[in-house]
C-alpha cells in the first residue's frame, strides 16, 4: 500500500529526469541520509542512556546501600566502603522495639490477601451487574457511581477514620481490610469495559441451554475475562503494599507490631533513628520492591491496554 503510493507520487519525476542523473542523485541523497541517520541514532541512543542513568540512580543507590556495612547514611560516598549482608540478617532475625520487618511483612501480606479477594469479588460482581444484566435504574446507578468516584478518597479519609473509630476498627487489621476493600465496588470501569466487548450471543447460548445467571457468571464469563481478572487481582493485591496515607491514618497507635511495611519503613527513618537504620531501610525497601516490581511488570501490559482502550472509546 505504502510503496504503491510512493510510486504514484514519484512517477512524474521519473518521466522527466534521465535515468543516469537520477541514479547519481539518489545515491548522493541516500549517502547523506545514512550519515544523518547514523548521527541521529547515536544522539538518540546517547540521550536515552543519559536519561536512563538519571532514572536509575536512586534505584541503584537503594541496591548498593542495602549492602552497606555503615548503618547510617553516607554523606560522601555513593557506593558503600565495605559490603555486607548484615542488613538483611538484621531486618529478618533481629527485631527491636521499632524494627519488626517480619511482622510488617506478614501484616501487609494478610491485609493484601483478604482485601484482594474481597475487592476482586466486588468489582467482578458490580461489573457483571452493570455490563451483562439489564434492570431499571441501571443507568442511574452508573451515573451516580461516576459522580461518587469524583470525590477523591484522600478527602473523605478523615470521615472514614471517624466511622472506623466509632465501630472500634482503628489500629486493627480487619479495619485496614475494610478500608481497602469495602468501597472497591466503585472501581468497576475497566473490568466492565472489558466485559462490554464480549458478545451477548455467548450468554444467550448458555441461557438457551438452561443455565441460570450464576452459572453464566462462573462458567461462561469468568473464563472469557481471564486476562482482565488477572489484572484486577494483581492491582488490588498491590494496593495495600503501596498505600501510605490510609495506613498512616488508621494505624496510629505507635505499636510497631501493628504496622504495615509502608508505615514501618517510614517510621524507621525517624530523625533520631535514621543514623542507625538507613541501610536496613534500604534492605527492607529492596526486599519488598522485588516481588512488587515483578507483579507490576506483569500488570503493566494490561494497564496500558486498559487505559488506552478506555480513552479511545471516549
Amino acid at each position, binding site marked *: 500500500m505504502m510503496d504503491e503510493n510512493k510510486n504514484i507520487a514519484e512517477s512524474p519525476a521519473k518521466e522527466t529526469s534521465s535515468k543516469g542523473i537520477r541514479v547519481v542523485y539518489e545515491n548522493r541523497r541516500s549517502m547523506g541520509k545514512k550519515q544523518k541517520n547514523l548521527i541521529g541514532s547515536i544522539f538518540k541512543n546517547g540521550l536515552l542512556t543519559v536519561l536512563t542513568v538519571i532514572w536509575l540512580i536512586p534505584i541503584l543507590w537503594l541496591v548498593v546501600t542495602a549492602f552497606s556495612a555503615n548503618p547510617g547514611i553516607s554523606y560522601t560516598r555513593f557506593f558503600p566502603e565495605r559490603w555486607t549482608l548484615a542488613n538483611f540478617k538484621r531486618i529478618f532475625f533481629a527485631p527491636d522495639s521499632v524494627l519488626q520487618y517480619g511482622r510488617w511483612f506478614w501484616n501487609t501480606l494478610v491485609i493484601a490477601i483478604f482485601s484482594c479477594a474481597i475487592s476482586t469479588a*466486588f468489582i467482578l460482581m458490580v461489573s457483571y451487574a452493570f455490563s451483562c444484566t439489564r434492570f431499571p435504574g441501571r443507568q442511574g446507578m452508573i451515573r451516580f457511581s461516576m459522580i461518587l468516584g469524583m470525590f477523591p478518597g484522600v478527602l473523605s479519609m478523615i470521615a472514614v477514620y471517624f466511622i472506623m473509630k466509632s465501630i472500634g476498627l482503628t489500629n486493627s487489621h480487619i479495619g485496614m481490610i475494610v478500608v481497602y476493600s469495602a468501597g472497591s465496588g466503585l472501581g468497576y470501569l475497566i473490568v466492565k469495559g472489558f466485559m462490554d466487548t464480549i458478545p451477548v450471543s455467548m450468554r444467550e447460548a448458555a441461557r438457551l441451554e438452561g443455565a441460570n445467571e450464576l452459572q453464566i457468571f462462573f462458567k461462561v464469563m469468568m473464563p472469557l475475562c481471564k486476562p482482565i481478572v488477572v489484572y484486577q487481582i494483581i492491582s488490588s493485591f498491590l494496593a495495600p503494599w503501596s498505600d501510605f496515607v490510609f495506613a498512616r491514618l488508621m494505624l496510629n497507635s505507635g505499636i510497631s507490631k501493628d504496622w504495615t511495611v509502608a508505615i514501618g519503613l517510614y517510621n524507621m527513618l525517624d530523625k533520631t533513628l535514621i543514623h542507625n537504620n538507613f541501610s536496613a531501610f534500604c534492605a527492607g525497601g529492596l526486599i519488598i520492591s522485588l516481588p512488587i516490581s515483578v507483579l507490576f511488570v506483569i500488570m503493566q501490559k494490561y494497564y496500558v491496554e486498559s487505559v488506552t482502550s478506555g480513552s479511545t472509546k471516549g
Partner: protein
Amino acid sequence: MRIERRKKKGSGGEALRGFKNYFTDFGSAVKNGDLGTKASLLVMGAGFLARKQIIKGILVTLVELMYFLAFALYSVPYLSKFGTLGTVKMEQSFDPITMQQTTNDYDNSFLILIHSMISLFLLVVFVMYYIHNMKAVYEVQKNAQAGKHVNSFREDLRDMLGKKFHVTLLTLPSIGVVMMNILPILVLVAIAFTNYDQSHMPPASLFTWVGFENFKALFSSGGMTITFGYAFGKVLSWTLIWAVFATFTNFIGGILLAVLINSKGVKFPKMWRSLFVVAIAVPQFVTLILVRNFFRDDGIVNTLCANAGITDFLKNIGLLGANMNYIPFLTSKGWANVMIILINIWVGVPYQMLIATGVLMNAPLDQVESARIDGASSSQVFWKITIPYILVVQGPALITDFVRNINNFNVIYLLTQDVYTTTDQMLANSNAKEVDLLVTWLFRLTNEYYNYKMASVIGIIVFIICVVFTLVSYSRLMAGGREEDYQI
C-alpha cells in the same frame, strides 16, 4: 460520541420524568389497590399474605418490625439530641462508698453526630423500600387479577439467580460503598458546620453546630492569630501551580520520551522501556524517602555539589545566601517547590510514557502517510498530526490527571514531612507550610492538630474545585467535537 452526548442531554428530562413516575406510581398503587394492597400501607407484608405468598409476607413484615424497633431503640435517642449534639458534659466524681471513680451519663457529641447520620440514612432507605414495596404489592395484585401466575417463595428465590441476579450481585458492594464513600462524605459535610477541634474533643467535652463560622474563618484573616484566610490563599495558589506544572511536565515529558523510544534508529526500544518501568515499579514510599535523603542538606548531592564548586558558583550568582554552605534542596521555599516539581517528573514521566506509547501505537497511520505524500516533513507530521491526535485521545485523561495532582498526597507528604519547616509565622499559626497542598494541609490538621472542623471545610472546598474544574473542562473539551476525526 456525538450521539452519546445527545442521549445525555435527553437524560436530564428523562431523570426528572423517572423521578415523577416514582411517586405517581406509588400514588396509583395506593389508589387502585384492593383491601390487601391498601393494608400493606400499615402492615407491609399484608398484600403478599392476601396473595398466599406467606413466607414473603412474613419476611417483609419482619423487616418492617425490625426497622421500627431499631428506630425506637437506636435512632430516637441519637436523633433527639441531633439538634444540639448533646448537652450533658462528662463529669467524674469520686464515690467514697465504692472507692471508685464514677462518670455521669454524659453525651458524646461525636457519637450523636455519626449515629444520627446513620439513622437518617436508614430512614431514607426505609422510605424508599416502603414505596418500592407498595408498588410490588400492587404488581402482584394486578397479576392475580389478570389470572397470571403468582410466584411462590421458591420461585422468588430462584429469580435471585435469574431475573433478579443484579440484586444478588449489587447488595454487598453497595453496602460497602455506602459505608466507605457515602456516609463519610455526609459526616464530613456535617462536621464542617460544627466546632469539632482540639478544644472540643469528645468524650471529655462537647461540640455543637456553628453554622457557616468555619467557612467564614477560611475566607477571612484577622491579625496574626487567625490566619486561615492567609494560609488558604497561599496553599491554594501553590496547589494550583503545582497541579498545572505536575500535569503538563509529566504529560509532555511522557510523550517526548515515548516518541524518542519509538523513533527510528533507537536500538532495543523494549529494553529502554523496561528500564524506565523499573524506576516506577519500586513503591513510591521507598523511592521518595530515598530521594529526599539523597537531597538532604548534609546529603550526598550536597557533598558532590560542594566538591564540584556548584555551591560556590550559586553563591556567587546570588541564588544562595552568603552564609549558606549547602544547597537547601528541600528545606527552603522556592528551592523546595522547584525540586518537588522536578522530582515529580522523575516519578510520573515513565507512567505517561507507557500510556503515550499505547496511544501512539493506535495513531492514525493513514493520515501520517497521506501527509508524507503531500510532502510534509517529519517534524510537521509530529506537530500537526501526532500531537493533536494525542491531545484529543488523552484530553480526558489529562483532566483526571490534573484532579489527581490536586490531591497528590504521596509525593508532597513523603518529600517534605519532617523535613520542611516554614519560617512564615502566619502560615505556621494555621499549621500550613509553603509546600503544602490542600490535602496535605488537611491531613496535618487532622492527624497532628485534631482540627477536624477546618479540615472538613478544606475537604469540601477541594471537592468543589475538583468538580467544577472537571465539569467545565469536560464540556469545553467535548464541545470541540473533534473525536469524529479519529473514529473509524
